[in-house]
């Protein structure tokens, strides 16, 4: 465009080595002050002291296959114990020949959870998918039809039990929680008082007492001669317990809906239920999805408490595997393995909820 310049533009100089590249990164992030230098050195020392022994224990000296616990004693981890007990830890006393059924159940649940993460599927289709999935889970676990042998709920152990308690509990607690939250926001004092009393009572006591109540007191509550299954009792306890916590989360969403939305719905002549169903709830629920996921993580972790009332969930089968006289004392290996399973589920869900939160806040974060 213009005439050729007399001076050639200088090529951009590289920044000094001390402020760019890996060295610069180290200076800026690890050694930017005397205190930070000390902290960095302390952290490095911690790594040097702890990491090599852990690696030696978990990999180098580990024993991967052995016939019995005695052949497995050494300086390292005995992963042979996990290999030996894997199917018991995952599926418990479910008939050995039928283990493919609980395996399919776990796969179904994982697939449903993954499908629920896709926001394009949210809506009626996802609800239908879940209903189909849960029906399939019921058929697979119980059996008795389609040529599958019947398996009583006593034998539903391990990971499928954990997933069933958490997911079915949450799914059935959800409608109850919506009613409780609406009741707590109701204009009618008697309904409000009862809902507040229920929510605060349940949130004020530990889950164990609710489980005890379900296992010890529920049989007393029922008419003479009526008995219900232990698993169902625990499930009812979970539903009643998580409903109170969910109700508080949903109430948070209800409170965040501006009054104008209610008034506009009234002005359109919508009834209370039309207004709630079409205007208020869709907005309120969308707002509280991240805390809902967090509540779900809490429920998922809480399912481990059922071992106190004698059900064998994933943690229960782990403890049971540890009582085998041939394989005594591999506590560390067993708990590390089970913790890893729980961690995978919870970590994935918490990451997902953080991602959702960021996405929902995109419009607000300016």
């Amino acid at each position, binding site marked *: 465009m213009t005439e050729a310049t007399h001076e050639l533009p200088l090529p951009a100089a590289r920044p000094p080595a001390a402020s760019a590249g890996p060295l610069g990164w180290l200076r800026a*992030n690890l050694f930017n002050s005397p205190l930070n230098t000390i902290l960095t050195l302390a952290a490095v020392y911690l790594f040097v002291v702890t990491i090599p022994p852990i690696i030696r224990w978990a990999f180098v000296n580990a024993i991967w296959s052995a016939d019995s616990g005695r052949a497995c004693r050494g300086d390292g981890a005995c992963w042979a114990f996990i290999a030996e007990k894997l199917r018991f830890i995952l599926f418990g006393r479910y008939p050995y020949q039928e283990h493919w059924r609980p395996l399919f159940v776990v796969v179904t649940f994982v697939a449903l959870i993954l499908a629920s993460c896709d926001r394009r599927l949210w809506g009626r289709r996802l609800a239908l998918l879940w209903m189909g999935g849960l029906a399939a889970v019921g058929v697979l676990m119980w059996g008795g039809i389609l040529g599958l042998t019947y398996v009583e709920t006593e034998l539903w152990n391990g990971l499928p039990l954990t997933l069933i308690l958490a997911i079915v509990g949450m799914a059935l607690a959800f409608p109850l929680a919506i009613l409780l939250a609406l009741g707590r926001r109701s204009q009618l*004092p008697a309904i409000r008082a009862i809902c507040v009393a229920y929510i605060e009572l349940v949130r004020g006591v530990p889950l164990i007492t609710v489980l005890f109540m379900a296992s010890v*007191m529920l049989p007393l509550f029922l008419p003479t001669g009526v008995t219900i299954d232990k698993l169902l009792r625990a499930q009812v306890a979970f539903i009643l317990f998580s409903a109170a916590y969910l109700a508080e989360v949903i109430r948070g969403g209800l409170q965040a809906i501006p009054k104008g939305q209610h008034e506009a719905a009234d002005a359109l002549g919508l009834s209370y239920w039309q207004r709630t169903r079409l205007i208020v709830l869709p907005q309120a629920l969308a707002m509280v999805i991240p805390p809902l996921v967090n509540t779900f993580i809490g429920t998922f972790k809480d399912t481990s408490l059922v071992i106190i009332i004698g059900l064998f969930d994933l943690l229960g089968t782990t403890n049971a595997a540890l009582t085998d006289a041939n394989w005594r004392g591999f*506590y560390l290996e067993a708990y590390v393995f089970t913790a890893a399973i729980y961690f995978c589920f919870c970590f994935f869900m918490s990451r997902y909820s953080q991602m959702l939160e960021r996405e929902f806040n995109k419009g607000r974060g300016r």
Partner: protein
Amino acid sequence: MATEPASATLRPTRPPFWRNPAARGIIYQVLFVAVVVAVGIFLVHNTLVNLHRQNIATGFGFLDREAGFGIGESLVPYSPADTYGRAFFVGLLNTLYVAALGIVLATVLGTLIGIARLSSNWLVSKLSQAYVETFRNIPLLLQLFFWWAMLRESAPAPRQAWQPMGGVFISNRGVNFPVPQADPTYHWMLLALIVGVLGAIAVRGWAQRRQALTGAPFPAVWAGAALVVGLPLVVFLAAGAPLSLDWPELKGFNFSGGHSVSPEFVALLIGLTVYTAAFIAEIVRAGILAVSWGQNEAAQALGLRPVQTMRLIVLPQALRVIIPPMTSQYLNLTKNSSLAVAIGYPDLVSIANTTLNQTGQAVEGIAMIMVVYLVISLTISLLMNFYNRAVALVER
């Protein structure tokens, strides 16, 4: 049409009562209460019938009967000949003890980790993030089993006990450590400590008033610390420093002397602390991040040093965000201490469980646990609400 009197057609008619919102509200409430009461009566009736059939007397009379079971650890004297009522009391004290210690330790650990998470040091920040993610995503009960197994099964016998510090022994019988032997001076030191705390509060009030009037600052923090630490120290030295420690010693197969805590207690305390600290760390981090960076810059522009900025500007504002979620974490920790029943620490739930297995008084036992936890929950939230009001923003 026109022949009819206008008043007959145009007079406003009262709508039927079921179209009146107020009347409908009353009807709904009456129906709802009636259903709730009916369900309640149904359940109570069934319970009474069932209890009668099983020959179980209702009421709290069983509390005066002899318990007949031993309790591993107790803060007050207890023997199997004592009543169920006393056993409950022992359990309650154990619950409060472990919860109070856990709250203090979890707050300290969690605050440190939360601050470390915000450190400009990349390694430190990632390490604390790893801590939070690990312990938050593993069920507490699994962690309790883990710590308990480590102490009970993997720790050495008393003869080969680990000795991390002189006089402290960790073995599969628990942790033994030296304690000072009782001395009358300690009572006076406690008194001196109380006087010191009151004095520190008074000095702070005086310094604030003086600064408001004259603008002259006074190092109230240092003066207060000197009072709180110094007064008991003076009493201690004046009495000739009577410090004789009671050391644990290996006698036979176990330790005697010193103070010993059971593996169950240690496992429960570690588990509760480590788990809750992960949540507290996130709360502290969020609270500090909620104070906008402009506040920091303004404080620096006023010439405040970093410590002053933290203490006078950032912390008071962060506390407002931190306290409500912190309250619910304290409540969670207290409620989670009931998991003690799974590893055999004799807390309230575990003793109530033994009681209701022995006596069959399920309804009363569970009702007592529920009432106790409700009272604890309400007390903690009341105290935290007071504190919250004290630090809340004073608006017009």
